[in-house]
């Protein structure tokens, strides 16, 4: 009985271990030549094509909500001149990476898990290995890199769209002045804020692609197994990304002192 309980507790640990081992395998395959340039471009394009439109649709309301919220709050403090800066800070540091994470995991990751899972149950991956090709090097590495690239790109896009959305709302609805919004950009925000957003996006892309590929490659039990793999990969990625986002933000705020107006 006790062994059963411990087995139940250790199971997630074991699963995390195999996921990590898989990530190491991917890391090793990253340096094995020949690099699959074509697959990389195709995959990056594919992930971009399934994420761009939803990202734009998410980014606009995101920026607007932040502008409304922050704008309202800031007016109560009588610090309207910082609205622009607060928006930028919130969008670039938090909203953009989170929105990117949601879309990379929900749209990009699920597509990767479904694709690899389908190949797995059709025995395509087995056939590949028998033909002397390592599917990790051939299929997973280009997807991981593609996902990271697109994540950075999406992050940039959400930042721009979000800040622009904030501007429209601040100026159009809250009666802020264009000059003040733009002039306050640099009051609180600083360059490392941009970098950390970028780093977050890279790491989110990496995690989303690795989890999705891992789940896809280990799908089993027919078409239902593929569905389960997609579902699990999205849920696990969400949880991981929110945890990682918290950790990075905490470290960042410790290491880089916030700018004081």
């Amino acid at each position, binding site marked *: 009985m006790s062994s059963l309980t411990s087995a139940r507790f250790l199971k997630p640990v074991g699963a995390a271990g195999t996921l990590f081992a898989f990530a190491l395998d991917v890391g090793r395959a990253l340096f094995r030549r020949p690099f699959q340039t074509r697959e990389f471009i195709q995959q990056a394009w594919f992930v971009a094509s399934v994420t761009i439109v939803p990202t734009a649709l998410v980014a606009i309301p995101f920026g607007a909500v932040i502008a409304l919220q922050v704008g309202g709050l800031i007016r109560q403090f009588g610090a309207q001149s910082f609205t622009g800066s607060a928006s930028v800070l919130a969008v670039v540091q938090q909203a953009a990476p989170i929105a990117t994470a949601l879309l990379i995991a929900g749209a990009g990751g699920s597509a990767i898990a479904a694709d690899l899972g*389908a*190949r797995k149950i*059709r*025995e*395509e991956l*087995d*056939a*590949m*290995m*028998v*033909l*002397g*090709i*390592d599917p990790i090097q051939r299929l997973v590495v280009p997807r991981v890199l593609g996902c990271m690239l697109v994540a950075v790109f999406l992050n940039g896009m959400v930042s721009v769209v979000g800040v622009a959305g904030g501007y429209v709302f601040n100026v159009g609805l809250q009666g802020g002045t264009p000059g003040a919004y733009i002039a306050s950009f640099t009051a609180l925000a600083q360059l490392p804020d941009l970098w950390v957003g970028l780093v977050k996006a890279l790491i989110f892309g990496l995690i989303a692609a690795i989890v999705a590929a891992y789940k896809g490659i280990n799908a089993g039990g027919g078409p239902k197994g593929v569905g389960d793999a997609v579902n699990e990969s999205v849920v696990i990625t969400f949880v991981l990304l929110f945890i990682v986002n918290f950790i990075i933000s905490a470290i960042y705020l410790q290491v880089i002192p916030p700018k004081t107006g």
Partner: protein
Amino acid sequence: MGVEIKVEHLTKSFGKQLIWGDVTLTIPAGEICVMLGPSGTGKSVFLKTLIGLLKPDRGSVIIEGTDIASCPERELYEIRKLFGVLFQDGAMFGSMNLYDNIAFPLREHTKKSESEVRDVVMEKLDLVGLLGTEDKLPGEISGGMRKRAGLARALVLDPEIVLFDEPDSGLDPVRTSFLNQLIVDLNAQIDATFLIVTHDINTARTVPDNIGLLYHKHLAMFGPREMLLSSEEPVVRQFLNAQKVGPIGMSEEKDADELAAESDQELPALPPIPMQLEPSNGIPRRSQREPGAWCRDNGVTPPPGSFDDNMSMTTGA
């Protein structure tokens, strides 16, 4: 010339579920072997263990002095170049058309120019009767065609060992006969070691040199075709003659009551042993033995009517 596969004390389970245990057999170089067994007895798992796609719990698979079950990944990729594998559903790469699928191993592992690749691909497509479909995607053709395309791809690198996972399931009887004839002709031509997993009794009775039977988590019997076809062993005779009377039931084995109820039933007589399928050019294969040779050497009287030319059950011969 083909390569011998030596399997010793192989055991495989998934979690607590034992698939088969202590399987020991030697697949002789250049011969055709058939592995039979009811659905779900782990025939596909057995094939995958032979190529190192699945790791056994215990035991070894020795090919040219290397143990597949324990050798490092890099050696595994080398050894696998000896293999051609036809997977149960063909396992064609869904994103490539048939031509690119079949050209894939050549482009990966040889320095052949595109025109040489084209020659080989066209030759293999012709061999399996798929000329004219090279631009189709795997999703656009029937299961039987996918299987034949899979065979073409398995053959392009001139393998020393060819593994077939149910080449005949999902094919109509005529195509099955053609495919069986193709397998025999291929073996005569390339002398590779062939291992075929199948349910098809006709294939099992007429194609191979050796037959093995996986049943109830172990290898029930493995040996020359005539040995199994003349065997009185209950499981072997039931399966090879597709009878209801015997230890194999609908789900797995029959329970004691069912067996007791059958004990006084007269077992139907063993049917005659058919002639082995010969290469279509009439030149015997290297590993082919004279009909009845095993029975004579071992003092076994084959069932009456055996090795009569007219008894042959195949249409291809």
